[in-house]
């Protein structure tokens, strides 16, 4: 064990891990956050707390992690390099660890032009891979960037994201390897809708020995409606949604679409469990956290079944 992370414990024990995403509110309302957190409590191994996701201003990820931790959650602090320079990033890592947060997911973040502050400066002092290496050096070398030693290293379980579907396609596994070599202990992938391409990606990862070096959690997002499927296919950066899935949603009566979306998610989760090297799933039920219990139950992934 490199850390005191509960997620690391689950993964190293070889249990199929379940993480889910929880987006902080656009404001300071703690009750909204707690309400979302309540639906996930006791069902998942760790909760990802997004960092101003899609460049929309929200409650800070560190604060929301701390509140969720207080409820009994195991939070994963998502950190993007878009909004903070290396001084602020390293400082927030110290602070998050001091608050009991034991997992961090290092990201670059969606470009600021996607959000509600389009006129903002994008910082991008570091990129996600440099942030990974920075947190790893803080933990393992007990040093910050530049080599100064620190008092009390943040012993974080370090994660990175991977998108098997972005271009150039051949480059995706090379980038995954770069992230793992830079310090990623676990990987959470972008939402997967194209299973064939994901299987190819996992084959390549296995051939390169990457599944031995890091735990890969497959990302899944249930569609709430055909509108959402279409929107994600057309508007969301880095998505690969096969037309047949959109058609399947479109062919379902409106009142049954949410149910069908969950059915698709459950089918995908079952297929992920068959793929060698997939250590768990990462469920991104966007503004649909209350459906997580149902999805996990239908997928046969209630905690008792995962041991």
């Amino acid at each position: 064990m490199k850390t005191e992370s509960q997620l690391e414990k689950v993964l190293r024990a070889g249990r199929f891990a379940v993480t889910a995403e929880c987006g902080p509110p656009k404001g300071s309302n703690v009750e909204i956050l707690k309400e979302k957190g309540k639906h996930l409590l006791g069902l998942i191994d760790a909760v990802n707390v997004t960092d101003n996701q899609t460049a929309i201003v929200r409650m800070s990820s560190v604060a929301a992690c701390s509140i969720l931790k207080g409820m009994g959650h195991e939070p994963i602090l998502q950190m993007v390099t878009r909004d903070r320079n290396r001084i602020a990033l390293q400082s927030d890592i110290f602070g998050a660890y001091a608050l009991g947060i034991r997992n961090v997911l290092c990201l670059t973040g969606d470009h600021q032009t996607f959000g509600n502050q389009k006129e903002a400066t994008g910082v991008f002092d570091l990129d996600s891979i440099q942030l990974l290496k920075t947190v790893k050096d803080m933990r393992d070398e007990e040093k910050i960037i530049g080599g100064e030693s620190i008092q009390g290293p943040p012993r974080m379980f370090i994660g990175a994201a991977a998108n098997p579907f972005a271009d150039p396609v051949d480059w995706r596994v090379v980038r995954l390897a770069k992230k793992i070599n830079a310090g990623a202990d676990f990987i959470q992938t972008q939402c997967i809708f194209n299973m064939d391409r994901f299987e190819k990606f996992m084959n390549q990862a296995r051939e390169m020995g990457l599944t031995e070096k890091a735990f890969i959690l497959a990302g899944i997002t249930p569609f709430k409606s055909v509108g959402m499927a279409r929107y994600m296919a057309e508007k969301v950066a880095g998505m690969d949604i096969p037309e047949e899935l959109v058609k399947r949603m479109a062919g379902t009566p409106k009142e049954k679409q949410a149910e069908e979306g969950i059915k698709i998610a459950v089918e995908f989760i079952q297929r992920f469990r068959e793929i060698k090297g997939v250590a768990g799933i990462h469920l991104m039920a966007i503004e649909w956290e209350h459906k997580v219990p149902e999805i996990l139950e239908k997928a046969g992934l209630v905690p008792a079944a995962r041991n």
Partner: protein
Amino acid sequence: MIVATLKEIDEIRKMIDRYDSVLVVGCDSCVAECAAGGSRETMLLASALKLSYMKDHQNPTITEAVLDRQCVDDFIDQIANQVPDHEAILSLGCGAGVQALARVYRDKPVIPALNTLFIGETQSRGVWQENCLGCGNCKLGFFGAVCPVARCSKKLMNGPCGGSKGGRCEVHPEISCGWDLIIRRLDALGELDRLTEYVPPVDWSTSHSGGPRKVIREDQQP
């Protein structure tokens, strides 16, 4: 070269309406190449301003002049005779030209007519592409002569990000993904191995982050 574009007449007028005489000064270097502030554009802007004032029944003195370079004193001195006859200077130079004129003609207001955008190249007729941010620490040799700092919207040094699709950037379909260009070019050159190494955090102290920069060379001084 420095690439710039002309401001709207209304915005320029808001800045110069208070003067009765304006010397409109073009620059025949970079901003001529990008068709924003050369001789032709200076003449066109002066005419447009005269027309605009005529419509409002006003008749300020508007004189044209063009310098070979607005950022070098030897050239700036060429308008020394005309400047005293005008209340203000309207510069079609880049931001450096505007500030150089203001340094030399210290008692005259100098107003910019252009928005200075970037260091770039003329990619084809009427198309100018940003390709250098002047970071002061050129690493083009490692990236197939495509700059990740200028050409990637997120300045990624270990890219590409997850938003690269079909060679296009997630920010806008008109933007080529810089990392797609880097990978293709290094692949064609048989040098893809350059990209497997981890690139450590950039030293931005040589860029504007270190404050306004200055080059001082004694061997070039009188």
